[in-house]
């Protein structure tokens, strides 16, 4: 059998995790960028304000005093030595290393440098125009605020990287919890997916571990709503397989059992032939052996027909004429009908019109021939068998009536069981004829009725076909 291989798709876990990670990365990136931008802007405003304030403080304390002074060389205000070596981030007792990144210059109206901080150059930071400006100095970007107070110009500058460092740190501080949260979220998500998919894994494991003949239903400790329908469908399939297997097993066991008796008979007759004391005895045993062979062949044929009828699913949907099927069955049985001086009356209604049903021609033929065979088998010598085909509206029925001993009401269900033989019907049949009739009728949706003939005599079987 060719099993259609399914191309393995992406795992649910991968899709979920990848999707989540991608979404989180976008969100994180956006958050970091917005946070950085926002912080940078705020820092800019804050620092600018401070820069301006510093300029005003210088103006207040310094500008008025140096305005009129004659200074030949600029006063340089140095920072205490250890400050620079004090590490970058930790504030020392004397100040902070970052003070080196802040510088100022005070100029008079003649563009003479009066005071400057040690970190400031001797040349003007920026052209002496009031307001904020961004300048480049010694390869570093500086933010400069220029203030004019009377004849004095005050320029206060601050290295720009201090500001971006703050903005970066703020943005980073905003993003770090998010990153940590993301990691926790991803781990949790992985665990949840694992938990959610565990029943699926268990299902796969159970199916994988099964022997080919293990057909008990699969049970899961936990069947989520998404898996429950799969499980139900799977167990439904398993049940059907189990039924089919059970039927096969029973059929094989029954067949092996049912063959023992005819084989025993054949063996006894064969040995009787070999042990015969006279030609007459030999001939008698030989005749019986041949009869036994015929019956065994018939039994094998019936077993096959029964197996086919029972295993058949939906029958073929051909249009089958019943009239020729009956004629054929009567023809086949003719030798036995003649031998037992039986009369077979076939009545059709309507008389000259086709009477047809839908189904499998071969199986329906088997149904008709087995019904007739049964009637011939049980009809008394010289008796009459009535076969009636009727169509009323779109309902078609086949009725077979014999004048045999009849079937007691309590056994009327049992005669349709495989290998069931009526008490007193000494082992002539296969015990499968009516079972085949039943299986074929079942497959064709036909109803079977069994009762007695007119006047409570004999047996009457009616097959009512489903309207086509």
């Amino acid at each position, binding site marked *: 059998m060719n099993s259609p291989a399914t191309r393995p798709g992406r795992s649910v876990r991968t899709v979920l995790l990848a999707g989540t990670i991608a979404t989180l990365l976008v969100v994180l990136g956006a958050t970091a960028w917005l946070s950085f931008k926002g912080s940078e802007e705020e820092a800019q405003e804050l620092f600018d304000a401070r820069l301006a304030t510093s300029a005003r403080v210088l103006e207040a304390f310094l500008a008025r005093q140096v305005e009129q002074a004659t200074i030949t060389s600029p006063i340089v205000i140095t920072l205490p030595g250890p400050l620079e070596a004090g590490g970058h981030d930790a504030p020392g007792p004397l100040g902070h290393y970052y003070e080196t990144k802040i510088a100022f210059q005070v100029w008079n109206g003649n563009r003479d440098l009066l005071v400057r901080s040690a970190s400031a150059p001797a040349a003007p930071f920026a052209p002496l125009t009031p307001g904020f400006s961004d300048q480049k100095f010694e390869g570093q970007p500086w933010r400069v605020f220029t203030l004019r107070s009377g004849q004095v110009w005050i320029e206060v500058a601050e290295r720009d990287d201090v500001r971006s460092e703050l903005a970066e740190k703020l943005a980073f501080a905003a993003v770090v919890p998010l990153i940590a949260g993301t990691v926790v979220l991803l781990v949790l998500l992985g665990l949840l997916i694992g938990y959610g998919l565990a029943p699926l894994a268990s299902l796969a494991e159970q199916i994988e571990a099964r022997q080919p003949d293990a057909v008990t239903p699969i049970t899961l400790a936990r069947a989520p709503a998404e898996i429950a329908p799969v499980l139900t469908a799977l167990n439904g399939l398993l049940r059907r397989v189990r039924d089919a297997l059970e039927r096969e097993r029973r059929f094989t066991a029954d067949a092996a*059992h*049912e063959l*023992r*008796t*005819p*084989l*025993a*008979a*054949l*063996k*006894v*007759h064969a*040995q*009787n032939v070999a*042990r*015969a*004391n006279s030609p007459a*005895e030999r001939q*008698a*045993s030989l005749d*019986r052996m041949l*009869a*036994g062979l015929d*019956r065994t062949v018939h039994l094998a044929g019936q077993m096959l027909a029964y197996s086919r009828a029972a295993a058949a699913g939906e029958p073929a949907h051909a249009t089958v004429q019943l009239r020729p099927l009956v004629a054929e069955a009567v023809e086949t049985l003719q030798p036995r009908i003649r031998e037992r001086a039986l009369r077979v009356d076939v009545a059709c209604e309507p008389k000259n019109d086709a009477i047809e049903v839908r189904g499998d021609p071969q199986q329906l033929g088997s149904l008709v021939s087995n019904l007739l065979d049964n009637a011939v088998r049980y009809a008394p010598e010289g008796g009459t068998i009535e076969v009636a085909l009727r169509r009323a509206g779109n309902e078609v029925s086949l009725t077979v009536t014999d004048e045999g001993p009849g079937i007691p009401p309590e056994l009327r269900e049992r005669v349709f069981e495989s290998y069931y*033989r*009526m*008490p*007193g*019907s*000494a*082992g*002539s049949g296969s015990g499968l004829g009516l079972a085949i009739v039943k299986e074929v009728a079942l497959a064709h949706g036909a109803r079977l009725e069994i009762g007695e003939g007119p006047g409570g005599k004999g047996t009457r079987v009616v097959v009512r076909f489903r309207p086509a």
Partner: protein
Amino acid sequence: MRILLVEDDDLLAAGIRDTLERALYAVEWVADGPHALAALQTNTFDLLILDLGLPGLDGIEVLKRLRAGGTGAATPVLILSARDAAPARVLGLDAGADDYLIKPFDVDELLARVRVLQRRQRGAAVNIIEHGPLRLDPQSLTVTIEGRPVVLQRREFMLLARLLQSPGQVLSRTQLEEAIYGWDAGVESNTVDVHIHKLRRKLYPEVIRTVRGVGYIADPPPPSLSA
């Protein structure tokens, strides 16, 4: 030796019947349980060969009812069945069967087992029946008198075998008729007497004694004769 055969398959029954009759047993055949019980109640059989898968009344049930008491409750039973599983055999033997044979079986084995049950009834360990100067071999179907073979007709052999099967027991004419004829064969009222007469002539007169108004008896031989 009269055997009741209970088997629902007519062809197998016919074959077994042929086998047993050719081995000089009288065989009655019924095809189902109720008929078997009826036959056992109204007739005496030396052996019951019983199929288990009978329509109507299962063979095991027939066996249980037979063993429950009444006429023929002690009749030896040989089960002949298609049920080959050990539990089925145990069930049959425990229900009172003396032996169990599985279909399909060997005819020689069937006959051998019948002979075993036959000699067990006599309390003997061998098949051959020795009676004074007489030797009856139920396997080769031969009779000798002091080593000399005697040619007997079937009915004569069957009659002698029946009488020697239970020496010292008076058997009625009806019992002897049943032992040599089936139900269907028409029996002339004096055929048993005719066969007895022939047996006495072919063997020796004292072999069978007439008990007036009752029947016949094969007296246990006196020790002097059995030498």
